């Protein structure tokens, strides 16, 4: 049904049966109780921040972890990057067990393969923009000239040229986060963690940064774990997403999956106000192509209906639908598009 499934992607980072309980005696509790319920954990006086999470982040995709405050999103990502040790579980990074990496190996992995962006930017106040962006390279021991050259390139990439000599305090929130993004990209990481990177920004800037982020990703094609508690942001950015509640992942799927086939009431509650046209792709309303008909116009099967609606509705004739390789796989008609637009999915 979904095209993405037809060509399975390589898994970059995955975890299985990941648990993180805070509180005294968490280890002991978990070794005696297999799969304790939320209530059992609470009764034991522990905090079940992450409970039995399985997720896979594919190469080159934006994987969004979404949930309300306190649902354990940050804790999952902190486990995945080993900023904290999970209570139990397995984490595979490029096929090797991350939890077995020694302290030294971990430093190497982080220096070369991981980048992280923080909610409150976490810029170093005593360094300039240039110094901040070049910092991860400085830590690796790259010489000054090389690292500053590289930093200048990335600063340009995130649109901050001319601000190299500024200090973080002299920049607006949006600009500071651009520095944070540039800094995390300086080492060309394989996996890119972003923990609510835009939550501290006001809505207009947030929107702008999301566009910027999508633009960067279209160039860089990183594997991304992106945390947000904002469902609109999630469906705008996600290739796939996981919804978390009380430390558990309740559903993983494309935004379309979540909207069309919510696994629980909870997910349905989240998705009920989402405009269908924004999450459904053309693929979901494709009809068989008319035999022998020559189409003048085409849309991609992976396009969101919202994005092509205007073109389809304004046209005189039906549109053909192509897949990514340009093969014609069917057509869309105007009634279907209208039906989705007015919300009768």
């Amino acid at each position, binding site marked *: 049904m979904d095209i993405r499934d037809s060509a399975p992607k390589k898994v970059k980072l995955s975890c299985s049966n990941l648990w993180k309980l805070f509180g005294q005696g968490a280890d002991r509790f978990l070794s005696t109780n297999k799969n304790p319920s939320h209530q059992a954990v609470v009764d034991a006086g522990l905090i079940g921040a992450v409970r039995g999470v399985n997720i896979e982040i594919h190469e080159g995709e934006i994987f969004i972890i979404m949930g309300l405050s306190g649902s354990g999103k940050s804790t999952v990502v902190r486990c995945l990057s080993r900023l904290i040790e999970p209570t139990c579980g397995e984490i595979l990074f490029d096929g090797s067990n991350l939890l077995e990496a020694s302290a030294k190996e971990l430093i190497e992995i982080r220096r070369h393969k991981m980048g992280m962006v*923080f909610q409150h930017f*976490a810029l*170093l*106040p*005593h*360094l300039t923009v240039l110094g901040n962006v070049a*910092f*991860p390279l400085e830590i690796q021991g790259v010489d000054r000239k090389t690292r500053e050259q590289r930093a200048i390139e990335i600063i340009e990439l995130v649109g901050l040229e001319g601000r190299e*000599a500024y*200090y973080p305090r002299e920049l607006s929130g949006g600009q500071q986060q651009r520095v944070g993004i540039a800094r995390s990209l300086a080492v060309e990481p394989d996996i890119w963690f972003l923990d609510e990177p835009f939550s501290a920004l006001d809505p207009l800037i947030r929107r702008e940064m999301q566009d910027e982020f999508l633009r960067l990703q279209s160039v860089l094609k990183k594997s991304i774990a992106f945390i947000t508690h904002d469902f609109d942001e999630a469906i705008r950015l996600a290739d796939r997403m996981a919804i978390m509640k009380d430390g558990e992942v309740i559903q993983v799927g494309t935004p379309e999956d979540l909207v069309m086939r919510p696994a629980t009431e909870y997910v349905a509650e989240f998705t009920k106000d989402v405009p269908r046209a924004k999450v459904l792709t053309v693929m979901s309303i494709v009809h068989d192509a008319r035999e022998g008909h020559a189409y003048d116009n085409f849309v991609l099967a992976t396009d969101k209906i919202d994005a092509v609606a205007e073109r389809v509705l304004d046209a005189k004739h039906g549109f053909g639908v192509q897949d990514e390789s340009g093969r014609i796989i069917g057509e869309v008609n105007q009634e279907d598009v209208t039906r989705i637009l007015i919300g009768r999915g």
Partner: protein
Amino acid sequence: MTFTTSLRHPDEADSALGTWFKTYAPWLLLFSLVGLLYGIAEYIPWAFKYPREWVIPLRFWISDAVKWLYNDATFGLFTFKEFTRGVSWVLEWPLTLAKSLLSTGFLQGQGSDAVVVWPRLAWVALTACAVVVALAVADIGLALLVAACFLYLAVFGQWESAMVTSSSIVIAVPLGVAGGLALGIAAHRHPIFEKILTPVLDLMQTVPVFAYLVPILVLFGFNPVAAMIATIIYAMPPMVRNTMLALHRVPAEIVDFGHMAGCSKRQMLWKVMVPSARGGLMVGVNQVIMLSLNMVIIASMIGAGGLGRDVLTALRRLNFGAGLEASIAITLIAIALDRVSHAFAHKPPPVHGKNARIFLGSNPYLSIALLTIAGTWALGPVLPAIQTYPENWQVTTGPMVNDLMQWLNVNFFDTIEAVKSWLLINAMIPFKRFLLSLPWIALVAVVALSGYRLGGAKLAVLVSCLVTFIAVTGQWPKAMVTLYLVGISVFIASIIGIPIGIWSARHERADRVVKVIIDTLQTLPAFAYLMPVVMLFRVGDFSAMLAVIAYSLAPAIRYSNLGIRQIDPALIEAATAAGCNRRQLLWKVQLPLALPEIMLGVNQTIMLALSMLVITALVGTRDLGQEVYIALTKADIGRGLVAGICVAFIAMTADRLISPWSVRRKKLLGLE
């Protein structure tokens, strides 16, 4: 309090009486027991006066232990004595270097045959450097202040002594900062070490300085190096605390970032943590500087020369003219250094385009400073006035001050004496007698009960142990004299300070003036108060009391001011809307809400009063402080330490009782 009672429903009167009874019954019981004690006093004399035979000879044990340590202890490769000599030897190098640079010039040869091979820094050069530093970290105003301070030193003939003092300070401060930083970092890294270190720091900050001068005197001798060691030990604790606090306050995200960037432990510390914690660390540096200066006079008791010794000698000879000038010199240095380091700590964050570094790279300030130094070295031999401020340009107010004193004594002696005697006879001495007559066991019981009510059994055990220690080591009568002086001084400081604090919190303009005064009061070294007080009132308890009041006044003002100010403005508006006039507002709303904070201020006042009281031993008190001072002159470690620890225990008892009360009260009032 007042609200709740008036709002209570009549039905609750019963239970209110019940609570009242629950609160006060133990006290009633206790006081009737004490009454009973007086009734049977003849049969139980030991309850009133701790018997001499029961005293544990702790001070002799300590002295013996140290004697053994010093004479016989070895660490395998070297003996303890060699160890202390080694430390002295290592520290002597930088001290000699600093002294050569600032005071004596670089010498060749020994003793009186020594010849100067390279002159010291010229006074013009040093003044210029100081001004340049002030300009670099702040503005022209500070530069003028610094210039004025240095000119004072030169003009009033204090330069030589000031340079001796400075050479010790410029070595002690960096060492104190480095040591404090190292300990603070270690404590931050290893929570267990922090757990051990915290009570040690608590103790060090409450034990009077004199008490640890004694062991240093015995172990390191009477010389400038020993004095410097004492200064470092005294000045280091706030650096340790500030380091721990500042590192702790580095935002968690920044720490995470450091890890994610792949920092090694060392990179994490020096490239992420320390730069991010800079502000807090600089506050620590400022405090190290201030405490080092506070130590100047005290350190001269174990061999530091310079201004400290001048003041001490003048104080001993009652030569006020000379003493006052040296006192002022120390005070001015303290103010100048405080302002400069404060400005450096609170320097606005760097801005792009401006050179962010101060002493590195191509920098106009540095060039100016280097040029002056070079210039004065070149010109020095030709124009000696540049090198050393000429003696015949010096001014002294010494004789004038002495004349003034004479005049004051001739004309006002009787009045001053009358006031003094009246207070002594009618207030101070009766209070002292009363305290001395109290049965020690009753006081222990009162403290224990207070502890129990405030913090449960654990606190009760702690404070009663602290107080019992004083009795058991035979320090009770001296401790009562301490208590009397501290009590009366704190009482007076409170009735002066609290109203000023409250008044200034309610008047904007007064607030600004008061703030400047407190800031100045707090930079003055403890000894600065002693000289004028003794000049006017001679030695004795009365002078001691005045000096203690002056020294400990600041926190009473500051905290009361803060307590009133931090009340939620909405609450004041509500009360005004309800028809309170200003007077009612103060008594029914502001004071009850500010009381916990005011009590914290009183607590601080007690701490300062105790530390000052020990210093007033110099003007002839007869309390624990005197005991420590005598131990110092006799180099008797056990005696000094025991008395010092007793002072610390009095301070701790007060602190442990007042702080929890204030915290609980704040919680009750919903202030936290």
